[in-house]
């Protein structure tokens, strides 16, 4: 416990996915000394799993597209619960962020006139997703990674050291944020490789840790997605919002069991793939909700014509927002019309020629061939919902990504508000870039504003953090010792079964009881072996975060007695305009061993943004009181 490595930086970014790297690039370009700390190797972040593309209204394929249309789509997708300022900034800045990637060396697929090609996606009115086949996330992460390297090369030329201003601490986990009074003073963590502790002194910390999906059994998320940033923020005194909204992606693999949950990109549907049940019926036509009736085709002919003529036809219902499609699949399976392994059929083989499928969806073709022995050019895939994304996260100031704790910033999936109750496909990658950059700027300006009043880390806090980090080696209560893998498996099962895609009040209550019990058991976790690259220990530490965040999800899910986006209550199936006005806020409880969830008012939508919508549409979401000042114009 004695060895402790110390570093001082202006800004420490936790997480090296799209948001973290973009924040680091920005802070470094603003002249700050920056550390990026990540649990995996550099360039392996979960962003690589993003397949479809980056939503940005560049208008390269359909010139009618602009930021207002993108803003409207985003608000509709999130059922108007979104933080409108975030949605506005996102829609306005996404094109610049994408173009910027080209200056880093990114190579997107091209249109005939040499611009960035854009593809259709669920919930987006126009072809809007910049993409590279179906590996856009990889392109994004690689471009940012290579930009970081390029900045390091500049620093090498100037200072003789690649890492003088920007250093990546790979395979390093942060376990605590340290404060000086109410301000952030640094972060404490350990090297996964050696188990040695490391202390970062920094007045500003940017959380870019991604999501929480590893708390669920069927998930498209990797082991890293343990809600670290969410939990760190809570423990540092920040608040989380919208934690009840968890996106279940409609199409994950369902077979074989070992790959259950792995993502099947929405591009399959964007490029013409259709969903069928065991009767061979395209069932999505039966599931178009009222709010979307005028935007989606109600018959197959019109839906098929849309792929070639979008001006005169409505979109196929397979391209409804993800929450709608996921619920529809869930209902079909429950009604006994599922595929042999408990999903539905997603067929692109009868819709596109084989070589076109391989060209447009190469990694899907590869993934099914290698993992499931299915040739998607010849036969349909079996798919079902999988936990994919958490809309909830740290409550931030939209323009600067600042949390309520001075010096703590959050961007990307770990930040809440941008996507409301449901995220549109493609809006995630653009979110990472837009708010990653803003967090980098926000943190830099904050550091500049501090002047000489730099926060100081208390040694007692460091000692406490190191004690907590190794507590699991000392063994729990005799006779009650627990294995971290077992506790984790039970947590996943609980969340999946009781706080999953369809929720019922009674079951969520059961989940809360189970979570309390798991928290108790987690205190008795014992880790074997030593600190050098010990996965059991790593899991035990991550498990604390998962338990805390799962409690937020369950408590908020119990309180919100309506169904909206990524939160479906079977006992409260309707959307309720009164609930749209309310945000559920999670904070750490007084004892520090759990969370409290309270309700607070949503920020009213700015009138000019409100004016972008028809009154009739607003009336579906807002209370009459909120619309009192809106002229009831009809189209």
């Amino acid at each position: 416990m004695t060895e402790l490595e110390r570093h001082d930086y202006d800004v420490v970014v936790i997480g090296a996915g799209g948001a973290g790297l973009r924040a680091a690039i920005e802070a470094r370009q603003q002249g700050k000394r920056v550390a990026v700390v990540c649990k995996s190797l550099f360039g392996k972040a979960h962003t690589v799993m993003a397949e479809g593309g980056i939503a940005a209204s560049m208008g390269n394929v359909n010139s009618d597209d602009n930021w207002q249309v993108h803003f409207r789509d985003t608000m509709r997708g999130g059922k108007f619960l979104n933080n409108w300022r975030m949605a506005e900034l996102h829609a306005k800045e996404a094109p610049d962020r994408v173009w910027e990637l080209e200056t880093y060396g990114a190579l997107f697929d091209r249109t005939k006139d040499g611009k960035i090609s854009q593809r259709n996606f669920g919930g987006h009115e126009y072809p809007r997703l910049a993409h590279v086949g179906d590996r856009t996330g990889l392109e994004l992460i690689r471009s940012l990674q290579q930009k970081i390297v390029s900045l390091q090369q500049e620093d090498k030329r100037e200072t003789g050291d690649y890492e003088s201003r920007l250093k990546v601490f790979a395979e390093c986990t942060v376990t605590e944020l340290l404060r000086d009074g109410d301000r952030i003073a640094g972060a404490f963590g350990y090297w996964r490789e050696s188990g040695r502790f490391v202390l970062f002194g920094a007045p500003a910390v940017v959380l870019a840790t991604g999501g929480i999906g590893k708390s669920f059994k069927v998930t498209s998320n990797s082991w890293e997605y343990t809600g670290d940033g969410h939990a760190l923020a809570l423990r540092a005194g920040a608040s989380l919002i919208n934690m009840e909204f968890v996106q279940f992606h409609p199409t994950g693999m369902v077979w074989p069991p070992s790959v259950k949950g792995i993502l099947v990109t929405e591009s399959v549907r964007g490029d013409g793939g259709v969903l069928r049940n065991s009767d061979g019926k395209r069932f999505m036509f039966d599931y178009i909700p009222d709010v979307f009736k005028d935007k989606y085709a109600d018959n197959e002919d019109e839906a098929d014509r849309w792929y070639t003529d979008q001006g005169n036809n409505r979109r196929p219902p397979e391209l409804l927002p993800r929450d709608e499609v996921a619920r529809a699949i869930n209902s079909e399976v429950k009604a006994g019309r599922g595929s042999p392994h408990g999903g539905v059929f997603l067929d692109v083989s009868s819709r596109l020629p084989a070589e076109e499928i391989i060209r447009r969806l190469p990694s899907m073709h590869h993934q099914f061939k290698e993992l499931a022995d299915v040739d998607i050019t010849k036969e349909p895939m079996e798919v079902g919902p999988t936990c994919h994304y958490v809309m909830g996260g740290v409550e931030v100031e939209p323009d600067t990504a600042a949390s309520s704790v001075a010096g703590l910033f959050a961007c990307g999936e770990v930040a809440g508000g941008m996507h409301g109750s449901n995220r549109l496909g493609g809006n995630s990658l653009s979110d990472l870039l837009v708010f990653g950059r803003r967090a980098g700027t926000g943190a830099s300006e904050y550091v500049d504003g501090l002047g000489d009043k730099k926060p100081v880390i208390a040694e007692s806090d460091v000692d406490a953090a190191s004690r907590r980090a190794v507590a699991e080696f000392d063994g729990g209560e005799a006779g009650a010792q627990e294995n971290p893998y077992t506790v984790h498996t039970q947590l996943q099962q609980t969340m999946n079964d009781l706080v999953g895609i369809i929720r019922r009040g009674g079951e969520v209550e059961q989940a809360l009881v189970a979570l309390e019990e798991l928290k108790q058991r987690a205190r008795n976790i014992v880790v074997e072996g030593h600190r050098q690259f010990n996965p059991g220990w790593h899991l035990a530490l991550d498990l604390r975060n998962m338990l805390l965040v799962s409690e937020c999800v369950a408590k908020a899910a119990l309180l919100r007695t309506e169904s909206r986006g990524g939160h479906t209550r079977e006992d409260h199936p309707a959307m309720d305009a009164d609930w749209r006005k309310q945000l559920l806020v999670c904070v750490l409880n007084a004892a520090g061993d759990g969370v409290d969830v309270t309700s607070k008012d949503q920020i009213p939508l700015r009138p000019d943004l409100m004016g972008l919508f028809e009154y009739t549409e607003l009336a579906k979401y807002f209370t009459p009181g909120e619309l009192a000042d809106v002229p009831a114009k009809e189209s």
Partner: protein
Amino acid sequence: MGYKAKFKVWRGDAEGGDLQDFTVEVNEGEVVLDVIHRLQATQAPDMAVRWNCKAGKCGSCSAEINGRPRLMCMTRMSVFSEDETVTVTPMRTFPVIRDLVTDVSYNYEKAREVPAFAPPEGVAPGEYRMEQVDVERSQEFRKCIECFLCQNTCHVVRDHEDNKTNFSGPRFLMRIAELDMHPLDAHENRAQEAKTDHGLGFCNITKCCTEVCPEHIKITDNALIPMKERVADHYYDPILRLFKRTNK
């Protein structure tokens, strides 16, 4: 459906280690990484293994299975017979940290030595125009998930530790090819640098990099040999140099 499989897994660290025997349950449709996870959860909780996406997209779980460099998440158990012993070792070209985890920092050092993409002067963001046919070659190389299996299998460094100083390996020679074929890269002399700074001449095109690439990138035919030809344009083709033809 399920059966008990015989596994040998290398366990140890830089000081030493050996192949340890395990008997472990295997179910239908599983991959080697599933079995390693089962060993962690049931028999060896501190067995170190690096992994992330479990879908062949991140390139973290590289190892050697029955002596062949592979991703553990993309190696299905069905390729082995039930009575076959499956041997899993860490990659043998990089220093071992513990069990199946190796220190791959060699690759990150080499990555840093490749001059970054140089944006064209006078072209504003948003004004980049590139034809699809001009980006396709580089796009193939950008499929790389950096699993470093090609670096691991390349005998130039696998069998000769001392060559690590002067040879960047297939992954980064391919990165140079990617940039050299990039329609808008403004950096000059990439081919020359491939020869002088990155050791392209060490490559004897024995194609193991291509053989092990989980993304099926034709590293040798599409990146390394074209780079060798570009190097030949500059250094070994006096007649071409006489004509000083530019083909930009």
